[in-house]
């Protein structure tokens, strides 16, 4: 039984600009102990998907299961238990840290909410986690603004770890950090994974980070997963034209520059193209692509692609 699974998950928003199909039929599985990367362009629905899986946003349709339990429609009270087990880390931890509370208070709050021990025990837990994520012990009495970006991300990680979660959804946790700090945080996340047997859903638009950090990768385009494969396969044998374009667009110091591999912008999720939703930008699009939506099918074990010509691409 997978740790987390979603089937035909949809999150649509009613807005002034019409119906936004931000998440539009996603199937995914996260196995225990696995790190699954989720990549795609800005606005393709990554964060919305992450928040929907945590039930921070209500799905429009589909089903979410956590350890075999259907959590799609659990009420907030019963969700509380699940929430202990699934945590989230955000890109900008600062925005989610109350500036008027000390780090000690911020970290103790979830323990209070979840009635995790008496005061002395909570204090011990907080002190332990602060040391674990590499913050100085006196951080407990200091305020968020006194910390650098990397340290604030450590605070965010500490908070996510407090309740012994099984899965952490990381939404661009290192995107706002300098390269020199990014390595520190990625190493910390790997250590924590090993120590606590965590699973991660790791949202990122940085393919080189995902290449290093993940076991399996999901490529998202306009509300759908268009390719899913283990890390090795995805990088050695990408099949979806969009995956290929994303990879080619990464400026890689070890190869000469190529022309921009993809023209145009991501279409709006209020106006999703007919047929294959990538056809407006796809260099290989045919008439078939304009009318018929490709099925998300398995081309070899563990490798799924939604493209009519996936088998013929070399």
């Amino acid at each position, binding site marked *: 039984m997978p740790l987390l699974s979603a089937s035909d998950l949809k999150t649509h928003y009613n807005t002034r600009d019409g119906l936004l199909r931000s998440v539009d039929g996603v199937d995914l599985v996260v196995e225990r102990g696995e*790190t699954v990367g989720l990549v795609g*362009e*800005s*606005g393709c629905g990554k964060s919305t998907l992450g928040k929907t899986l945590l039930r921070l946003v209500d799905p429009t349709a589909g089903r979410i299961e956590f350890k075999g339990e259907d959590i799609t429609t659990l009420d907030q009270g019963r969700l509380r238990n699940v929430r202990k087990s699934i945590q989230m880390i955000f890109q900008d931890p600062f925005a989610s840290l109350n500036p008027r509370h000390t780090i000690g208070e911020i970290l103790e709050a979830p323990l209070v909410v979840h009635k995790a021990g008496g005061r002395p025990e909570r204090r011990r837990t907080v002190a332990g986690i602060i040391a674990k994520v590499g913050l100085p012990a006196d951080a407990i009495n200091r305020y968020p603004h006194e910390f*650098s*970006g*990397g*340290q604030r991300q450590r605070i965010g990680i500490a908070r996510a770890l407090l309740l012994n979660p099984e899965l952490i959804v990381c939404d661009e946790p290192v995107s706002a950090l*300098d*390269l*020199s*700090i*990014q*390595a*520190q945080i*990625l*190493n910390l996340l*790997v250590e924590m994974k090993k120590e606590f047997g965590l699973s991660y859903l790791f949202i990122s*638009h940085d*393919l*080189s*980070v995902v*290449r*290093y*950090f993940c076991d399996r990768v999901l490529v998202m385009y306009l509300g759908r997963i268009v390719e899913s494969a283990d*890390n090795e396969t995805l*990088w050695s044998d990408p099949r979806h034209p969009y995956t290929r*374009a*994303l*990879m080619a*667009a*990464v*400026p*890689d*110091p*070890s*190869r*000469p*520059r190529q*022309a*921009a*591999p*993809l*023209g*145009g*912008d*991501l279409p709006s999720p209020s106006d999703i193209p007919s047929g294959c939703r990538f056809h407006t930008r796809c260099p290989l699009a045919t008439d078939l692509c304009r009318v018929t939506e490709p099925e998300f099918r398995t081309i070899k074990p563990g490798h799924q692609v939604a493209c009519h010509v996936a088998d013929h691409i070399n």
Partner: protein
Amino acid sequence: MAPLLQVENLTIGFPRAEPVRDLSFEVSAGETLAIVGESGSGKSLTALALMQLLPRTARVTSGRIVFDDRDLLGLDAREMRQLRGREIAMIFQEPMTSLNPVMSIGWQIGEVLKVHEKLSGRAARERAIELLRLVRIPAAEKRVDDYPHQLSGGMRQRVMIAMAVACRPKLLIADEPTTALDVTIQAQVLDLLDTLRRELQMAVVLITHDLGVVAQWADKVVVMYAGRKVEQALPGDLFNDPLHPYTRGLLSASPRLKSDFHYLSGRLTEIPGSIVSAAGEAGCPFRPRCRQARASCGHQVPPLIAQTPERLVACPFTSSLKAVPDAASLSL
């Protein structure tokens, strides 16, 4: 031919800090100079100094900025206004903060042309449409009446570029122009900038913290750390043979697409600590984070040593570093 822009020993001070110190570099017409460095290393303040748009509390405390044989620091406000936008233009990381949300993009581009080129309303609008075509905005004649919020991030950045190149500036300063954009859109925007650079023979100062961008779009690179230039090189040399311990650290900290490096096979090489530690450091600003630091590094700021005319490094110990056995694993 003298370089178009010469920055000599530029120091920028606030009442209680000196975020840019003794910085020198040059850019020639048609050339792209990249400035890389962590956030807070002084890149944006340097850009603002070139535009003479420093925050009120900041001052250039020493140095010269010579642009096209004129010392910018000697110009008065009116002379600088004439230069800005016409001969020197700038694009910012977040276009939304520099576009006016209540005016159409056509009006905003037109305004630049009316002020600097004294075009009439009609002519300015025509030229705005041409510029939107130049930056590859589809259906430019319709889009010209759009407001900024109707455009995607990539399109807004292209509008910013259209405004910046409207008067065919000699120097374009781009401060993290693609940091907020996807790699797909980044490639489009940087290709566009590069084409314009060639066509208009502009000098470009490209500020970025993305080493991949540097490798693929720059003619030369300045690496800054804590307000100072610590290394300067041609991109190929920088990547094949980084000299300064900070540059070497950056390259080995970066997970790279082509490598087989995976978390199961080993940790990323960290640079310990953060740039905050450079504050108040008397010697080498990188010393608190440098694995090669020795006692003498605290005595004075290491001077820039020229290995070749293109290759400068502010660390006296680079030749001994090269003897370190695992140095080969750092090269790309």
